[in-house]
Structures are given as structure tokens and as C-alpha cells.
């Protein structure tokens, strides 16, 4: 009896001791996981490269990824959205200011607070590559720049019409897979990303990631080389196909994801198998350092902020002085100000013609006079110069 009781007490004490130990192990693994991904901010570059009303589905694709990414936490200031044509306010759209992804107009992916950074003719290969590499003219506003650093995880989504090794931009130019790989290498060398997820939904999309050679890149495509990506379903009221199959199932998958979700990349690779998509989605992870099973979806699609604790003290600058009070009324002139006459007819009629600024003569005039002078001096010789002057 005593022995039995002693064993029970001993087991109970052992249990009490082991529980906090096990719990701290659990906390440590959780903390380790928290800091394992190494990124501190998230960016997204979402590009639709097709123009014209019948390519409605490409704009809907891009807007559905935009909607998911915004819902999971990435703010508009960290999203560069490029839409090559306007479908929402197109005159052929029977419901203006809407872009639907599901037939019977179930889900409006355009929303009420969308901010498109590059639109219409601005979506060109040159602008896309400049955004990626950061080599933009100095007057470009912040919302049009990809201001990522070496701790940023970037999601790049491209959709449109493509082929084996190229992606067509607006039916007039194309980007090749080699150019894209070189752009990513430039980004790597300039330390513009920590990890990059590249998703492409075009025909023969896998050809676009074949040539990547920079580290920390993971790529997904909607179809293999030699296969076409197909569109999903038309809406008879709008009259066009609303989404592509791969992005439709991707949207369905992402609607289940919430900011605290633990879904990882292996789930993403399983999205849209051949039975649903008809084409075979592909992926490439050999350049990626971490195991895809340990990469969370929210590492790229969401914006979970990580905090770094520092032990250095930072000196804050002295507070800004309040603006000087208005000086006494004695300094200001008391005469009252007036508005300008909108159409001063008499003044306009007697307006002096604007003095043209003097410009130095351009190349043609200079050349002509040089020719005349050369011919003159050749004919008459320098020695006659003193007779002329």
C-alpha cells in the first residue's frame, strides 16, 4: 500500500515537473518558428498584361489575387497593381464599377477602395522591369515604386497571354523568360528581396520560370510547356469569360486562408490538379533555401509583421517648434485684395504679342553659313580679306 501510494506521489511530482519543461520546449519551438522566415515586410507586384474587353478574365484574375492579398493584410502602399486595360468602367460593362469573378455576379473583386498604380498604356515591359529593379525616374511617386529591401518577401503575379518562353504585353511587345530571370538576378544583387514567390497564369506558363538562376525563388505556373491554360466559365449577362481556371481555384483556396492560418506551400502546390484545371500546374522549388512544407502561405500573401528587439538607445531629435505667431497688423498692408477679371476684352485686344525668347541658331543655319563662308573664302582667298574689311 505504502509503496503504491509512494509510486503515485512520485508519478504525480514527476508529471508536475515535466509539464513546464515540455511547455517551455513548446514555446521555444514556436518562437523558433516565428523567427525562422527572416522577413520583416511584404510586397506584392500584381500585373495584368492584356488589353481589350474579351480579356476581362485576366483583369479579374489579377484583382482576385489583389483582393486576397489585401484581405490578408498587405496595405495598398505595399502593393503595385498594374492593369493594362479598364474593365470596370468600360462602356461594354453592363454593371459599371464592378469586376466579377463568379458567374451570376456573386463576388465583386473590384471592390470599393481599389488603387491601381499603373493603368492603361503605362503597363509596358520597360515599366515592369523598372519597377522590379528600382531604376525609375526620380519624379516617380512612391505609390508606383517597389521600395523593398533585403528583408522583404515579394509576391509577383503575372497573367495574360503567353507562349513558350515569352509573355505578351498588350498585344504589342513581349518579355522573355531570360529577361525575367536577369531582372530577378539584378534584384538579388541589389538586395531587393529576401524571398520571392512568382506565380504565373498563362498558356505554357512553366517556360517562364525555367531560366531562373537566382537564390530564394519559388515559382508556380498554371500549365506546363506545350499545354494551354483554360478559362473557367462565361457569364451570359456580361458576355465574356470571367476567370481562368487556375486562378479561380487559387482564389477559392485563398478565401479559406486567414492571417493566422498555418497552411503551407505544399497545400498551394496541390491547388487545381489536372482533373479540375485540365492543364497540369507546375512548380519549382530548387532555388529556395527552406523546405516548402515549412513556408507559410501568409509569408507571401499576408503581412505578418515581425519585431526585432534592439538593445541600443536611440536619441530622438528635439521637438519641432510651433510656427511663429502672426505678426502684428501694423506690418501687413490694409489694402483689400481683388479677384482677377475673367475675360478682360479690352486688355486682350490690345495685348502685345509675346516676346519670343532668343534661341541660338540651330545646326542647320550654322551649317549653311559655314558652307557659304567656306565657298566664299575658297573662291576669293584669304589675301583679299583686307580689301573687304
Amino acid at each position, binding site marked *: 500500500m505504502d509503496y503504491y501510494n509512494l509510486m503515485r506521489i512520485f508519478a504525480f511530482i514527476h508529471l508536475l515537473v515535466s509539464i513546464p519543461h515540455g511547455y517551455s520546449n513548446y514555446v521555444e519551438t514556436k518562437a523558433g518558428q516565428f523567427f525562422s522566415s527572416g522577413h520583416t515586410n511584404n510586397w506584392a507586384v500584381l500585373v495584368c498584361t492584356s488589353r481589350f474587353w474579351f480579356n476581362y478574365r485576366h483583369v479579374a484574375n489579377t484583382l482576385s489575387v489583389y483582393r486576397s492579398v489585401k484581405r490578408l493584410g498587405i496595405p495598398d502602399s505595399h502593393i503595385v497593381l498594374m492593369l493594362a486595360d479598364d474593365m*470596370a468602367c468600360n462602356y461594354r460593362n453592363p454593371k459599371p*464599377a464592378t469586376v466579377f469573378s463568379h458567374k451570376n455576379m456573386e463576388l465583386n473583386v473590384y471592390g470599393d*477602395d481599389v*488603387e491601381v498604380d499603373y493603368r*492603361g498604356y503605362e503597363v509596358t515591359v520597360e515599366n515592369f522591369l523598372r519597377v522590379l529593379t528600382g531604376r525609375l525616374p526620380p*519624379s*516617380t511617386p512612391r505609390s508606383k515604386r517597389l521600395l523593398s529591401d533585403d528583408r522583404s518577401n515579394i509576391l509577383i503575379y503575372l497573367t495574360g497571354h503567353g507562349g513558350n518562353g515569352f509573355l505578351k504585353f498588350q498585344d504589342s511587345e513581349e518579355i522573355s523568360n531570360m529577361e525575367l530571370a536577369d531582372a530577378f538576378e539584378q534584384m538579388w544583387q541589389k538586395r531587393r528581396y529576401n524571398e520571392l514567390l512568382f506565380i504565373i497564369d498563362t498558356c505554357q506558363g512553366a517556360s517562364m520560370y525555367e531560366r531562373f538562376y537566382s537564390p530564394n525563388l519559388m515559382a508556380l505556373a498554371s500549365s506546363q510547356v506545350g499545354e494551354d491554360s483554360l478559362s473557367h466559365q462565361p457569364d451570359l449577362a456580361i458576355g465574356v469569360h470571367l476567370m481562368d481556371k487556375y486562378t479561380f481555384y487559387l482564389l477559392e483556396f485563398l478565401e479559406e486562408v486567414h492571417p493566422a492560418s498555418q497552411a503551407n506551400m505544399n497545400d498551394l502546390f496541390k491547388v487545381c490538379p489536372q482533373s479540375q484545371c485540365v492543364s497540369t500546374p507546375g512548380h519549382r522549388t530548387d532555388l529556395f533555401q527552406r523546405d516548402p512544407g515549412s513556408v507559410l502561405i501568409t509569408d507571401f500573401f499576408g503581412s505578418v509583421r515581425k519585431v526585432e528587439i534592439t538593445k541600443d538607445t536611440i536619441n530622438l531629435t528635439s521637438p519641432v517648434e510651433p510656427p511663429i505667431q502672426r505678426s502684428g497688423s501694423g506690418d501687413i*498692408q490694409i489694402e483689400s*485684395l481683388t479677384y*482677377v477679371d475673367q475675360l478682360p476684352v479690352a486688355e486682350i485686344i490690345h495685348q502685345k504679342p509675346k516676346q519670343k525668347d532668343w534661341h541660338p541658331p540651330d545646326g542647320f543655319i550654322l551649317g549653311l553659313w559655314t558652307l557659304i563662308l567656306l565657298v566664299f573664302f575658297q573662291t576669293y582667298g584669304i589675301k583679299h580679306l583686307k580689301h573687304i574689311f
Partner: protein
Amino acid sequence: STYPSLIGQCWQAHPGSVCSKGSCGKNGTRDQFQEELVIRPLHSGDIYASFQFRTLWDIDFLQERQKVSHYRLFPKSLGQVLSKFSVRELHISFTQGFWRTMQWGQPFIPSPPGAELWVWFHDTVSDVDGNWKELTNVLSGIFCASLNFIDLTNTVQPSASFKPLGLGNATDHRFLRYATLPREIVCTENLTPWKKLLPCGSKAGLSVLLKSEKLFHSSFHSQAVHIRPVCQDEQCTSKAWELRQTLNVVFDLYTSSQGKKEWSLFKMFSRTLTEACPLATSSKIYVDITDNPELFELNPVTPLLSQAVVLGDRRTYSVFDLTRAETFGQLCSLNLLLRWKGDSDMLRPLLHAERYVAGFGLQTGEIHTVIYNNHPYRAFPVLLMDSVPWYLQLYIHTLTVTSKSRDNKPSYIHYQPAKDRHRPHLLEMLIQLPPHSMTEVTVQFERALLKWTEYTPDPNHGFYVGSSVVSALVPSMVAMNTNFTQDQPLFSSFVPVKEESSYFVRVYTEPLLVNLPTPDFSMPYNVICLTCTVVAVGYGSFYNLLTRTFQVDEPSLPLEKRLANLIRRIRGVPLLA
């Protein structure tokens, strides 16, 4: 200071101007915000709603150069733009649709289709073009529009039109820049940042009505931002910045109302009003009830009436003051209902303009601008400004101005010819319009062939030519109000009125869509294929013919003879044939 109070059942915030701690006197700041909605039923059954949001930023102009400014109601993004680029006045508008003057009358604030931007800079600016380029880029980021396509090829410097609408006396037109992008699309992505500039955002006050799904499903939608210096008070001894955000929309009878002349706030905007913006000193709705008082029905009835002279016409308005709790009634929400039967006579607009392209083929054409003066007995001058891109080469020697089939010589002409790929044409003329007449301005042009890289991705759509601008001082039948008072409604105080007998109006014509001769863009590929084929087949065959030598080929021996030859070779004996 603002504090909510319980009046009846609805929570209502008491409005007030935002004052700094302490007094609101001379040393304090007096930023003000006013919002207003004017609803005007049009005689065709459509309804015209015009929102105006006015923010007054009280900042000391003498100390403009200081680096830090306090922003209370004025948006910081625009304030920084004003100080960085030394802007004196800024007017930008985004419009979808075309204003039909003959059916709808004159708008309160006119705007051309697409995007229009005109800016007056301060005379301290040394490089106006550089500032203009940077300003357009910054604005394209703020408004999510492609304003960065504004460059020297579509910017003009008008010499007499577009005088400043704000305070000031010097008007050197070297500091004015005007550009228009007729192709610019307006959609929710432009409305979103526009709403963010309002002090109450889209959360309270009249801005809750701005829902994009309804606003863009209309015949006409125009949103604009106007910044100018105005008088701070009635004595007008000092200046303040005024920011006016205006949104004009015309809802169509058939698409929005199913053909019934019954309109309500809920039908137009899919929302009702529950409160005024707490930061607003005045928040009012004006409903135009001048036409047809017997057949017109307005619910709920309000005792407040106001009369205003706007655009040369005396109109009566029912006023709903949203800062008073009684306006919202028992249900704490305001939904105006307008119903009218029968037709009313519309006041025929006195000034109206049209423009079209005549001619055939892809080489030449003719631009016709027609201006109508519908006043029965008064003649008045108008200033016509035309800005034509360089790829339509105008022949100014063919310019004719005819009124009533007689030549009408303009009293002022300013013409700046275009420079290929550098500058567009600018033509400004001051024309006297005879009473009750039609004046036609025609000019012939030739279409240029662009370089193949200059074509847009969809060149067969055509190329746009911006609207012409007709500015005029139209004689008014009713005396206009020249006094500047604080209580004047916003829609009648936009354009400063200098004399009682006329009012200033600006009419925009249609933009033109012109087809340029478009090459076949697959030709370089075709040429390369054909040339390579011809070279390969033609030259290759020729080269082979010249350099190929022929040898007689020995027929192959049967197997026994080959074996015999092998043994003979080993033995060193001559081979068989």
C-alpha cells in the same frame, strides 16, 4: 469644439470650426469645412446632383516658406504639393461622359471629357516646365491616374484664356500651364483617393452617398479638385487657401429609374443620410424647385427656402440643413423623395458649342467648330481656345470664321504653330458673336505618319484631340450678386462676379477622335521572313551552282568481289574493277 449630444433618439455631433487650443480669435486658426449637395431635376427626366466640399486653410501667406505647416482639415498631400512646387492655383478634373448642354442646361462647374489640369505658378518660379513635369508625376501618384503622360507634346500656355480664379493682380501667362488627356478613364481607383482628401473621409456627412457602383452607372460623372487663394473674411485684407472638391453626376432616367420620374436619395446613391460631418460648419442640401411648382412633389417638406441667382437665372431652392437634428426626423435618416409629372420648359442655354471633323480619307480633313449664340438681341465676345496635337498639321491659311454666312474677323488672334514631337498647336481667338446666330470656325489639316514606335498598342481605335474651350461673359437677364458674403451657397460662389450684368461661363466642346494612317505592324516580321527565304533559296542555289563540282560515283561491287579485293589488298596485288 465638438461634443455629441442626445437629441430625441439620434446622436448628433454639434458642428463647429476646428480651432486651436485657446481662442479662435486673431491668433488662432480658423480652418473651416463646408459641404453641400444641390439636386436639380432636368426637364428630360434625368436628375443632376452636384456635391461641393470646401475646405478653407488659414495659413499665413507671408511665412509660406517655413518648412513646417500644421494641417488640420486641409489634406497634407496637397499642402506639400502646393509648397514644394510654388503653386498659386491648381485645377484638376476627371470626367466620364460628355455634358449635353442643349438637354441639361449649364453645369455649375464645367469640365471636359477625360482629365484636365491647369496650374498657375508663382512668379518666383524660375523653371516652370521642370516644376510642371514633376507636379504631373506627383499628382498621378496621388490620384491613381496616368497624368504622367502629360508632357511638352500636349501642354500649352494659353495667352488669354484661363485667367486665375483666385485672388491676385499680376497675370503673366508665362506661369500658366494647361494640359488635357481626353483618353483618361475615370473609375473607382480615382474616386478612392479623392474621397480620402475629405476631412470626414467617406464615413460621415454627405460623402457617405459617394458609392462608386451608383456613381459610375450614370450619364455623366465628373470629379474635380480646385485649389486657389481666396479672401479670408469680408474685408478681404488677407488670403487663405481654399480647396474645393466638386463631384457632378447626372443619373439617367431609364438606366437608374426605370423610366419613372420618381427619384430619391436611396435610388440615386443606394444610401440615406444619417448625420452631418462633425467637422463641418455647414452641411446643406439644396433642391431646385423653381420649375413647375404645382406638379412637383418633395418629401419631406422643409420650411427653409432660399433664392439664388446662378448662371443668369433666379432659382428657388428648398434647403435641408443637416446640422439640425429635426431634418432627420423620427427615423434618424434623411431620404429625399422627388416626384414630378408633366414637362417643364427648360431655359434655353445662351451659349453652346459643337465640334466635328469633316472630310474623307486618311490624308486630309477639316475641323469645324460651331458656336451658337441664342440670345435674342445681345451680341457678346467669346474667347475660343483650340489645342491640337502636332500630328494633325493645321493649315492656318485656310482658317475661316463665318457668322450668318458672312466673314467675321476676330479682334484678337494668337497662334503658336506646332513643332513635330515637341509642341502642339495653340489657337486662341476673340470672336464677337452676333445675336441669335451660329458662328462656324473651320480649318483644314493633314494627318502625319508617325514612327512605328509612337503608335499606341491599339492604334485602330484612333487618336484623341482635346476639347475646345469657349470662355465668355454672357449677358444676364437677372442681376447677378457681386457681394462676397460668407453665407452664400457654394454653387453660386465659385466664379467671382465682377459686374451685375453678365456672368462668366466656360463651355467645352466634344473631343475629336481621328484615325491616323496606321501601318500594318506585322510587316517587319513578314519582310524578314520573305527576305530570308529569298536570300536562302535564290542566293543559295546560285552559290551552289557556281561552286559545286561533280564527281562520278563508282557503282558499288557485289559482296564476293569486295572480299576478293580485300584479300588482294593484303597480298599487295592490283584490285578488281
